[in-house]
């Protein structure tokens, strides 16, 4: 296959699978999950240190050669997201930030308006900003104009494993945007990741589907293969869809017509 890297925030990536580190039954699986996935971008969250217990350090499970993409999960508005982003960068782990502003606690749906405000501010401060959004083309264009490094629409609610419920709207973003479109939530099966890639998405982010699998390491490999297959199919160009049959064998010289 020809080299098919893509660039996010000035970083050249060959893997189109981003990985999340939440909800694993055992964190010790994470290095093997990352290795099997081939992922070069790994997301983590930020929380207050528990004063009672010295907590396990998630960073010790993430290899140094991947891009760390802290997220602003828990933020309910732009101000909180900006604060979390600044804190994350101050720890000296790079300047990537995934904006995640979810005031709705039932479906964890992103607030696109606040996300735009946070993106505008953080781009000015030199962050590589990857906003998690509802797939709304109007807002996505504004995010692109604001300097977002990618746009990350949801396929379905976070952690739901329901797949590409917003498929048609994601397709609009792929069609219209110049920045990479990365499906960020809801993907539950490798086939759905494959489909997102067939549609022309630049990458997908998967966490729950892998972490909640019976064998996360094996599932990471399955996603890696699915993403590669989907990307290859996109590059090859899918054949047209028709309503009626169109023979793929010649319609002349049938054996029964031989005299």
């Amino acid at each position, binding site marked *: 296959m020809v080299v098919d890297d893509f660039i996010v925030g000035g970083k050249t990536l060959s893997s189109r699978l981003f*990985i*999340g*580190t*939440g*909800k*694993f039954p055992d*964190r010790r699986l*994470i290095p093997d999950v990352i290795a099997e996935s081939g992922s070069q971008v790994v*997301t*983590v*969250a*930020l*929380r*207050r*240190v528990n*004063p009672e217990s*010295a*907590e396990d*350090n*998630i*960073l010790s499970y993430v290899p140094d050669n991947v891009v*760390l993409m*802290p*997220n602003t*999960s828990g933020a309910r508005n732009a101000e909180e997201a900006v*604060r979390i982003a*600044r*804190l*994350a960068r*101050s*720890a*000296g*782990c790079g300047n990537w930030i*995934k904006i*995640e502003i979810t005031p709705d606690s039932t479906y964890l749906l992103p607030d696109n308006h606040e996300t735009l405000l946070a993106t505008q501010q953080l781009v000015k401060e030199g962050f590589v900003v990857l906003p*998690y959004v509802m797939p709304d083309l109007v807002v996505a264009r504004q995010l692109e104009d604001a300097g977002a490094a990618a746009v990350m629409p949801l396929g379905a609610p*976070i*952690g739901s494993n329901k797949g590409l419920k917003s498929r048609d709207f994601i397709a609009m973003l792929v069609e219209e945007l110049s920045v990479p479109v990365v499906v*960020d*939530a*809801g*993907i539950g099966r490798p086939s759905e990741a494959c489909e997102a890639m067939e549609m022309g998405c630049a990458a*997908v*982010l*998967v*966490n*729950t*589907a892998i*972490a909640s699998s019976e064998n996360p390491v094996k599932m990471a490999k399955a996603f890696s293969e699915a993403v590669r297959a989907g990307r290859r199919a996109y590059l090859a160009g899918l054949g047209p869809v028709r309503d009626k049959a169109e023979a793929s064998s010649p319609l002349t010289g049938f054996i029964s017509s031989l005299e």
Partner: protein
Amino acid sequence: MNLIVNGESVETKAKTVSELLAERGVTNRVAVEVDGHVVPYDEFSGYTLREGSHVEIIAFVGGGCG
């Protein structure tokens, strides 16, 4: 002196951010905010704490999306 660390009142002998982290056994890479001011990682040892300051110690934890 007394500080408010992650929302709780704490009596400490620490004079700087580094000393406070050491006293509390925090060896992970963390982010620290003092009275709303984000303290860069490489300034922890030189950043002096004051009586009554509100300190937030934030760590990276497992998380994602999808």
